[in-house]
């Protein structure tokens, strides 16, 4: 009996220690900083494109009425948007939009990152809530990346903030932080959730079992950018791509964690998402999924690459004494 209690206690302590290490062990901001650059660029582009039809999407006489978007969200006050508070003036709409682009640019560059990261998340959600009906996977990934980049110290690397810090004579880079670890872990786990449900959802479909699903993507003219109809002569290839896709998605959340399988899982992400990007015309979605996968790249890999270039993640040239 005493042995069982001791075992339970030891088991519980192991869990606590593992949890503590997983979430709170301070870590370098190198990966998170690069994630901020990539995700920030995508946020900036996404919102720039919204601006091509500002009145059409967000104006009071646009094709998506505020009434519709509120109804879509069950009139929940928590599905908020600053566009609901604007009076419909095209000039005000334009000015607010330009301000949003300025904030997103600052976030991308890492200027006042502590504040612009939070604003970037709020902007992303606000635009998305008002443009409900015209959204897709890109917006879902954009939003959670923006949220987690606001949680972590994403301005501690590859940022103007860091450059200014050096100009002010603060030679040492920021110390590793626990909130950076939390941010990276949240991105990693959320990516696992995305792939798991994407895969499990597909398992309801017959075409993912009989190997024909990829044909459904290739033969869709509205998505198609590359002509893939020649695949009709290679049904085995359609089957193979279908089975590999579903197998990879369903197994991702398990196989991406162990050191041995992680590189293979991440390498597989590249052709899969580049295929979506350039074969199906969803370049932004394919790229943002690769950005999310980047959260699994250890900062020491990035630092090693940068070191070979003669720089460190804070832009300083490395001294020969290392």
């Amino acid at each position, binding site marked *: 009996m005493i042995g069982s209690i001791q075992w339970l206690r030891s088991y519980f302590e192991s869990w606590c220690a593992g949890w503590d290490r997983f*979430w709170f062990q301070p870590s370098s901001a190198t990966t998170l900083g690069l994630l901020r650059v990539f995700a920030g660029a995508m946020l900036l582009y996404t919102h720039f494109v919204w601006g091509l039809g500002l009145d059409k999407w967000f104006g009071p006489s646009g094709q998506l009425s505020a009434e519709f978007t509120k*109804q879509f969200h069950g009139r929940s006050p928590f599905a*908020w948007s600053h566009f609901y508070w604007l009076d419909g003036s095209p000039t005000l709409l334009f000015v607010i939009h330009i301000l949003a682009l300025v904030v997103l640019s600052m976030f991308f560059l890492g200027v006042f990152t502590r504040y612009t990261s939070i604003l970037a998340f709020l902007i992303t959600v606000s635009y998305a809530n008002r443009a409900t009906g015209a959204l*897709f996977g890109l917006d879902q990934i954009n939003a959670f990346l923006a949220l987690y980049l606001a949680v972590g110290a994403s301005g501690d690397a590859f940022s103007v903030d860091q450059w200014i810090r050096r100009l002010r004579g603060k030679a040492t880079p920021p110390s590793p932080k626990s909130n950076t670890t939390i941010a990276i872990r949240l991105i990693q786990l959320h990516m696992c959730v995305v792939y798991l*449900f994407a895969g499990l*959802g597909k398992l309801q479909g017959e075409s993912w079992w009989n190997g024909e699903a990829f044909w459904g993507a290739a033969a*869709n003219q509205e998505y198609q950018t590359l002509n893939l109809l020649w695949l009709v002569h290679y049904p085995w290839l359609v089957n193979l791509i279908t089975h590999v896709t579903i197998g990879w998605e369903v197994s991702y959340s398990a196989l991406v964690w*162990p050191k041995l399988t992680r590189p293979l899982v991440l390498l597989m992400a590249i052709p899969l998402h580049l295929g979506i990007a350039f074969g199906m015309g969803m370049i*932004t979605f394919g790229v943002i999924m690769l950005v999310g996968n980047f959260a699994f790249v250890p900062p020491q890999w990035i630092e090693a690459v940068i070191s070979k270039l003669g720089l*460190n993640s804070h832009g300083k040239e490395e001294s020969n004494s290392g």
Partner: protein
Amino acid sequence: MAKKMNKKSRRNIQGGDLEAHPDPNHAPNREADSTVASNLDESDSKTLSSRWPIWIRVVCSLVLLFHLFCVIIAPLAGPPPSSSLSRNAAATVDPYIQAMFLGHGYRFFAPNPGPSHLIEYEILNADGSVTTGRYPDRDEHWPRLYYHRHFMLSETANSVSNIPPQDEFASQVEARKEEVQIIEEEFDLEVAKRLEREIRSDEETFAQQQEMKESLLLTLSQRLLDEHQGAAIRLYSVEHVLPSPLDIELGAKFEDEEFWLKRLIYEFSSGAEWPMEELE
């Protein structure tokens, strides 16, 4: 001793090291340790192993658990099929899910990659002529992301218009109510009450779906009319059926008529009437 322990605990676990030992002070990955340590002065060596106070870590852990629960329950609860348990659980945290924009199913190309849906419109001009167009349009809507926004809107328009007509729904509800009446009289009152609540819920949902359909298609119609300065409009949802491999082998093309299924989803007029020949 404390200094030695700090050096040993200096490790970067960014790589999600599942082979890590339970002892947080054990550092098997010395290469990672040295990589991170090389960026630190000796005076900073403590910061790598410094931790937030335990009470902060406990509070953060609770917040993280709550957040992860919401991240997982949202796709579990929708879209259908989903269990009533998951839907009820998601409903309890709906404010957080909405505020953090977590309410997604991630069912990309699931259950099966399906056909695309476009919008075709016919606009009656003031002079009696008719302008037609298709939405989205790759030539007009550029860059690709802009085209995709319009594409998603056309899919939404098809989705919201895919509800049964009012009279069909009403007769279905009537049939269900008769069944509930029989259950109440001959079987179980509680079961009948629960079924009645479900019918009322479905009626509310149908009413909301009708409102959404009207909201979206009306504003879309009005916008198109404004752009073309027309007097009346008809909107069609056009399903572009996926050609099968056999179709392609037999020489079919995307543009072939058999792959385009069109249905009228909305009509709007600012007073003008379609000429008789347009009704045929």
